[in-house]
């Protein structure tokens, strides 16, 4: 597993750049990853979604799917795409320091 420096911390990441240890995550890291993902600013709605996703992943042991986020964080799919453009589930997972959402086999 590779590591990288971000927001002054060393974190473990996989080869696609997803953090692999959720406990290494901090809000500062989220802000930095969000910038890399083209989101210069995280609004309270962004944070609501990030926090829901971290809670849900903590309970379920995996990143929430797009539909699970819309139901759980009470946000429409349209808004989710506006907040996290292009692949919101993946983007949220990356910013929230969670693994890549499981694709469907």
């Amino acid at each position, binding site marked *: 597993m590779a590591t990288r420096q971000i927001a002054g911390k060393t974190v473990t990441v996989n080869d696609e750049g997803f953090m692999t240890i959720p406990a290494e995550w901090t809000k500062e890291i989220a802000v930095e990853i969000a910038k890399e993902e083209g989101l210069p600013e995280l609004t309270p709605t962004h944070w609501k979604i990030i926090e829901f996703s971290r809670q849900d992943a903590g309970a379920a042991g995996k990143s929430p799917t797009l*539909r699970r986020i819309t139901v759980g964080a009470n946000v429409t799919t*349209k808004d989710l*795409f506006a907040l996290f453009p292009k692949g919101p589930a993946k983007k949220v997972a990356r910013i929230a320091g969670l693994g890549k959402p499981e*694709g469907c086999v």
Partner: protein
Amino acid sequence: MKQLLILGAGTAGTMSANRLSRMLDLDQWKITLVDQNPIHYYQPGFLFIPFGVYGRKDVVKPKHDFVPRGVELIMATIAGIDGDSNTVTLGDGRKLRYDFLIIATGADIHPEQTPGLKEDAWGKSIHTFYSLDGALTLFDALRDWDGGRLVLNVVENPIKCPVAPLEFLMLADWYFHERGIRDRVELIYATPLPGAFTKPKASQMLAGLLESKNIKVEPEFMIERADPDAKKIVSYDEREIPYDLLVSVPLNTGAPVIGASGLGDELNFIPVNKHTFLSNKYANVFALGDGAAVPTSKAGSVAHYAVEGFCPNFVRYTKGRELLPVFDGHANCFIESGFGKGLLIDFNYDTEPLPGRYPLPGIGPFTLLEESEANRWGKLIFRWMYWNILLKGEELPLPFRMSLAGKWQN
């Protein structure tokens, strides 16, 4: 008498009833199977119907033919499942008490959940092959079609048989070639996935195959609505794909009664332990087949492998012993690739589809992740095995757990 209640007489429910009726002592156990539809559908066959390979009679049989002696089949809808009082209420008001419950109510399509799909154009310029009626209507539509842009769109994952959309497109390539109009047909696959398939090696291989057949992939396309008047589909990130003929794989969900009974996730699939199928909520409730929320394919082969491992484990559990983590997520899919050929993929929770030979290492006769004529015969012979061996819960001489023998890892 102890009561074992099985909800759903589809693939998983029927196989479980057959196996458990032989493994449990029927002097002590009463097994009851509940289903609302007297007809059993061979769902893998729906794929072939639009192309005239199969017709209705190839894919339907009465459910009664597959219910073993000693098992009662009740034809009724299910109104509610109450895990706290161990009771299932049927649509006609009858209440069935159980000691153990197996839920095998499957997954079904919901085109009404996507705006524009199931409106005036449904069955005209918008079709599906995920139902028997849909597949039969599409057969007529394809026969009369003289070319244009055919777009296949998967609304959202998970879906039953995740390789079926690819197979449909490859069969369409062959079908229009045979009709002599392939040069007048554009084939487009609009999928929410980042590529042709999720598993890296298979995705790469299948992407190459689609490209060689001139089938274009539009990845990460999450449909927001269809616009039947303008004949286009629109994604949440405002991409538009025009079509002349739209073939939709609509949203798949578990049975609505699952959600209404508080047993489901956001898609009415039932969260269970992925190795034992025991409900996360009740110690005497299991979910098998497409209705279970487990991270493997929703497919008959998975149901078969799952049931084979589950049944002895369940019998053990009823005698007060703990459940063993037997199921490894084993899936095994024949992929029809057109022109008389097919591929085979074999994988589980931990191992992605790899190239090699199956089931005999080095020999086959089937080739993994590679086109061959033998694979396609395997797929066609499978229909006979399904009706005559699998549903009746008879043994196949193949292990239910995945084996790495015969697979090339690098």
